[in-house]
């Protein structure tokens, strides 16, 4: 016998079954930066208000007063909205993937 006895999928069927082939909509991709502490990240460009991305300040109250950690926007990836970590400040993105959009061979 040269065929698999059974094939079980734990990810693909649920993750991809509703997908149809679609063309990349590159015009909608925008790389934004939410504040001076977060890395660039990709957004689908759908969470804007009045034509502008909304950035809301966030921070913490300390005995010494309010400390503003950065700005938050629902229009960009959550990874770029969380924290003012020193790690994130040095992470840059978007340096891979410029060659083409289809690699099949």
């Amino acid at each position, binding site marked *: 016998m040269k065929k698999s006895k059974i094939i079980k999928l*734990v990810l693909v069927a649920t993750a*991809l079954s509703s997908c149809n082939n679609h063309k990349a909509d590159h015009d909608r991709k925008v790389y934004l930066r939410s504040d001076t502490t977060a890395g660039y990240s990709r957004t689908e460009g759908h969470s804007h208000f009045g034509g502008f991305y909304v950035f809301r300040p966030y921070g913490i109250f300390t005995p010494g007063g309010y400390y503003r950690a950065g700005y938050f926007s629902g229009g960009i990836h959550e990874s770029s909205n969380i924290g003012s970590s020193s790690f994130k400040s040095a992470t840059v993105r978007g340096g891979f993937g410029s060659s083409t959009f289809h690699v099949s061979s």
Partner: protein
Amino acid sequence: MKRITNMPRVDWQKKVEEIGFGFHTLDTTYWDESAYYEFKLSEIDRIEKATNDLWEICLEAVQYVIDNKLYRRFHIPEWFVLHIENSWNNDAPSIYGRFDFSLKNGIPKLLEFNADTPTSLFEASVVQWHWLQDTHPNNDQFNSIHEKLIAYWKYLKEYLHNGTLHFTAVEENLEDLTTVEYLRDCAIQAGHNTKFINLMDIGWNVDYKEFRDLDDLAIKNIFKLYPWEWLVNEEFGNYIIPDRNNTFWIEPSWKMILSNKAILPVLWKLNEGHENLLPSFTEFERTSLGFSYAKKPILSREGANIQLFNNGSLISETKGDYGEEGFIYQELCPLPEFDGNYPLIGSWVVGQEAAGIGIRETNTLITDNLSRFVPHLIV
């Protein structure tokens, strides 16, 4: 090998979509079950043996290229050679590859080896297996790709760095995404902790000199469905060597040698007369070839920029944007014809052994991005 016309299953689109196959119809039909190919067991045994034999001589050819520093012939940038040699000398993990064969009088002849970013894996492993279960459950199929993938991901576990095994591709393309998510599915079943990241979202941390995912966690092992020759020429390609984690990129960078068609003349030089190889030559050696040959760019995808000559006359060609790195010349071995259909056999290597086949057919002699995937069975 026979081509049998066949009534497609009722609601076949729904059936294949239910298992996660969303690109069955592209501009034209891609998954085509209005026919199937029938093989005798002896023919399959021959394909299996050819695949295992060729894998062995491919590894010898890589060693030869490295020993003789033939990188310029492969258009591999000098600054990246050390990474390739390290990945080879350290047995960096590799999971799969696909040999493309033309069957000539029952003998598989190697047209090329897709060693770096082969696709059509999910179709070969899962979709045609379900088709067989539905239509010919008592027949066999050369297809143990799924269980071999799971087994090999398990085997690789102890060779990877601790932590998450990332998977990446350009997610906007469903075909590429499906291939990667299928491989990730098998890795999950093998016990790996996995995460998908869109290629463009990979980050580089300047302070820590490491690649990061969107949770800002270090990437130490990553399967990428993206060609090495593109990766190294992009902005972040310069960071692959200074990366402090020495991230395992799968397929490893030594596959740059095997996925390049410049390997074909090397294989022939080292194994002249091998029954599964076609005489192949560089531009400088092409006078050794007659007037019937294929002219192929050393770097190209989806059958682009290929010209076929028969007795000196151009009989078929494809357009494209490849060829500036040069060409190789290979003895003409036309695909067999079945009522105007030309099948190409893609024979999978998983880990170190032959694992199954998938067949793509076209209505021309060159298999391009308009090919159809047609299932098979063994009688």
